[in-house]
């Protein structure tokens, strides 16, 4: 699953643009992820601050 570190996220939306599934959404000042996330980790790489982490279950 994708963990969003809200304490680190700067809500810039870079991750939203690269998400192949359209699973992320930037709602004003917070980021959300929905059930379509496939844990591909692309957003984790692109984040300029390191706010996203895919947690292997």
């Amino acid at each position: 699953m994708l963990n969003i570190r809200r304490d680190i996220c700067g809500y810039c939306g870079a991750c939203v643009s690269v998400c192949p599934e359209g699973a992320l959404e930037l709602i004003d000042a917070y980021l959300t992820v929905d059930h379509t996330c496939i844990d591909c980790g692309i957003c984790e790489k692109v984040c300029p601050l390191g706010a996203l982490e895919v947690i292997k279950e």
Partner: protein
Amino acid sequence: MKRQYDLLIIGGGPGGALAAKTAVEKGLSVCLVEKRPAIGAPVRCAEGIGKELLTDFLPPDPKWICTDIERAELIAPDGFSMLLEPRMAGNEVGYILDRKVFDRELIWKAAEAGAETYVKARATAPIMKDGAVAGAVIEQHGKIYDVHADIVIAADGIESKFARWAGINTTVPLREIETCAQYLMTGIDIDSQKTSFFLGNEVAPAGYVWIFPKGDGIANVGLGIGGGKSGAGHRAKDYLDRFVSRMFPDGKIIELIIGGVSICKPLPCTVADNMMIVGDAARISDPITGGGIYNAMYTGRLAGETAVNAIELGNTKKASLMPYDSEWRASKMGKALDRNYAVKEVFTKLSDEKLNTIIHSIAKLNLEEFSTLTLITELIRANPSLLLELKHLRSFL
């Protein structure tokens, strides 16, 4: 908020503002929604724009111009600096804006002309009718409104979702996004009329570092790196912290600005039935510089004009909106996007040694003008084999 408008615009940046102003001045009823509580904030921009490009839209105003840039400096990976004087730098010289004020001014002009504007109002879904967009569901202050419109313009920026919800794939490939971090710094020793660009895989792989002065001792100091180069321990902010501690150890950081800039090809088609896509949402920022303010304003204005014509004709289907897509592609801006994409594909793959060779050789020329064309010529001079790899570059010479 009414239930029906001629034109509904999603997003209150420069693209949405120009679309709104253009359309409302020609008599359309226009509603613009911005999901943020404030227009212009938070800033996600280095704030530079070419002088000629800006004056295409409005006369320069000291209210939102921080600095008037006279010179530019390009610093090679080996530290060699090449100075571009105004006569050479052409469009690369310009203004550094205060986007918080600038964006408000653009929206204010649209509102003054009669556009309705709503903040903290977010489009949560398109309203679809017979497979085509017919408006949007808007959420504001806990209430939900079904807002119908003949045409919807998606001006929702890099994190654009609207076009995607309506069935258009807007995904930016990882290697074709620049992931960026910037500090607004004060107390730094800089030339306030000179922009600086640092190249090299050490400072910003597949990107560059910029210093854009906003006043005496104040500047946007930022960088972008290729998305493919980013990861744990080597993110945009890591590179920026290293650069800043080396260059400006005593500077004070008064703002952190982050964001993504697409450097991919534009969306294959920027219109659909009853819908147009403008600005960053259409993936039309410049693949070399990352600049997107002008491109957003230009496509916003053009989409506004196209909406007026289509509604006058009583046909807002895709074919009727196609002139928007074909016109921007054929424009000077569209051609520059094509050319700069081809150049970017070469540039982002160059080793530091090659970058050094190219910058040293450009500096030796007595250039009348510095432009992307000069860059292409020199790229090929330094790497004749590139022409074979990228035959299409030849067509730009």
